[in-house]
């Protein structure tokens, strides 16, 4: 059993649903031409990323015409879309939606909304409250969006919930130009965790990142498909548009899990018991605090006149 999977590494227009819907249609046609059976789009690629106050203007409900259009498009090719989802009680979610055979089969609402440094997601979005694998017609999959994967608990749950492949739509900004690397430091970090997670949990990692710039912030592209042995099956260009395709042979998951049955041996009860204990006495309650040079509260001083 294998799925011919494609990733559309696109550069959406910020806040322009119609333009991006047209981009989706074009890439779905390209997927069909490439005999893909599953197509993945990046995080918020139907809307753009730094939406700020436009979030409510681009949000889709189950009744939106765009949602109906997306359903229709999935009759020819199942796909994962990245969009703003508005709930019945008017919360806005950064969601990844799996469309298959004209229907919505699964919605993942981003759980970990980065709100630090350059990010401001918690200001605009409501937080998802579940991590669930789901059954597609190809087998059991899981959706985790960008920052979700920086919390190892999410992929731990997805793997234990039976996912054979984890799909990660992402809008990951390039940052940290360091020496002796062909990619920025954030890209390096992602590539490291994609490979580590694929090998650790014996599953396929499907990482769909966007490209382009918004207000000077570039997105690094570099989408990739990594197999359970950590082999990269397909890789998108850095910093530019691309369209990549690869066959996911689920036999590889079986072979890897036969050789290293780590998931089989996972002791969930132990994890649950220890988590309950830690929740009751968090690490923050520790009495041993190392004394650092920077521990002293000390601002910069106004220099005395010479």
């Amino acid at each position, binding site marked *: 059993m294998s799925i011919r999977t494609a990733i559309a590494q696109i*550069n959406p*227009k*910020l*806040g*322009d649903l119609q333009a991006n819907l047209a981009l989706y249609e074009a890439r779905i046609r390209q997927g069909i031409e490439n005999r893909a059976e599953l197509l993945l789009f990046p995080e918020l690629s139907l809307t753009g990323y*730094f*939406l*700020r*106050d*436009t979030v409510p203007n681009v949000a889709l409900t189950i009744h939106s015409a765009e949602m109906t259009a997306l359903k229709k498009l999935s009759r020819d090719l199942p796909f994962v879309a990245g969009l703003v989802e508005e709930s019945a009680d008017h919360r806005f979610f950064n969601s990844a939606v799996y469309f298959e055979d004209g229907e919505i089969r699964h919605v993942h609402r981003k759980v970990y909304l980065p709100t630090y440094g350059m990010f401001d997601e918690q200001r605009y979005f409501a937080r998802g409250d579940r991590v669930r694998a789901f059954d597609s017609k190809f087998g059991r999959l899981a959706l985790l969006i960008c920052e979700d994967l920086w919390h190892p608990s999410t992929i731990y749950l997805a793997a234990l919930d039976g996912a054979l492949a984890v799909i990660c739509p992402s809008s990951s900004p*390039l940052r940290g*130009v*360091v*020496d*002796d*690397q*062909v*990619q*920025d430091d954030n890209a390096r970090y992602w590539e490291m965790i994609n490979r580590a997670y694929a090998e650790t949990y014996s599953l396929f990692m499907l990482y769909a990142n966007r490209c*382009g*710039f*918004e*207000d*000077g912030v*570039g997105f690094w592209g570099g989408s990739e498909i990594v197999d359970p042995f950590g082999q990269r099956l397909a890789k998108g260009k*850095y*910093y*530019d548009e691309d369209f990549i395709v690869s066959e996911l042979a689920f036999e590889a998951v079986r072979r890897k899990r036969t050789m290293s049955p780590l998931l089989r041996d996972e002791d969930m009860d132990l994890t649950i018991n220890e988590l309950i204990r830690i929740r009751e006495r968090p690490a923050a309650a520790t009495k041993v605090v190392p004394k650092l*040079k*920077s521990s*002293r509260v*000390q*601002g*910069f*001083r*106004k*220099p005395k006149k010479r």
Partner: protein
Amino acid sequence: MIPIPTNTTLLREILTAFIRNEVHKTGLKRVVIGLSGGVDSALSGMLAAEALGPKNVLGILMPYKSSNPDSQEHAAQVAQECGIETLLVEITPQIDAYFAKFADADARRRGNKMARERMTILYDHSARWNALVLGTSNKTELLLGYGTLYGDMASAINPLGDLYKTQVWALAEAVGVPPAIVQKEPSADLWVGQTDEGELGFTYREVDKLLYLMVDQRYTRAELIAAGFPERFVDEVALGIMNSQFKRRLPVIAKVSQRTIDRDFRYSRDWGK
């Protein structure tokens, strides 16, 4: 001590992609840039020529009568190196006409006036030529506030604003800015004999190391001093950053409504693009 990275291959790839993306998404194809003869505008211009094609970049030379003649020569070299057209607009008549009425103006006022005069010329030609104004301010200058507000600090997009001067030098060398320009002493050339490092009181190489640790790596005062920087230097630079914060922000708006621009009316600049 953590050295400032200078991965010129990657910086070049990212910055040309930045220029191409940010210009094209506005529906325009072209940029205008003030070529001073210095390394910053040379680099910015060469990156733009590479990103957009030389025919889409116009370099404007705007000397004043006291400007160093080398500056104009260097600007012309840059234009030739990257194949862009240039335009010469002398600013002496309007500057002298203005200061004939304010003869007591000191060098700083005169310098700022010249920087702002050049800004108006760049924006006028950007309108004439359907182009964006390409910026040339680097991160060192922006952090220290060493620039003229609404003068050389004004632009539509700026590929160099996140590069320290040290990185500008490395990248300029890598993209082929003529060595004489990379190696000469940096000067705003607003008055005869002016040099950046003379005016600032420290060298770019010294201050870049400090800024990189203070700003990028978030070293505390105690950590910076432990890393070997003199206390006074650390404090002077920290104060300089704080006191020039106004130059890096929009003018302060008095809030009276429910939605005030940039406070709770928040949109990306690339909204709809």
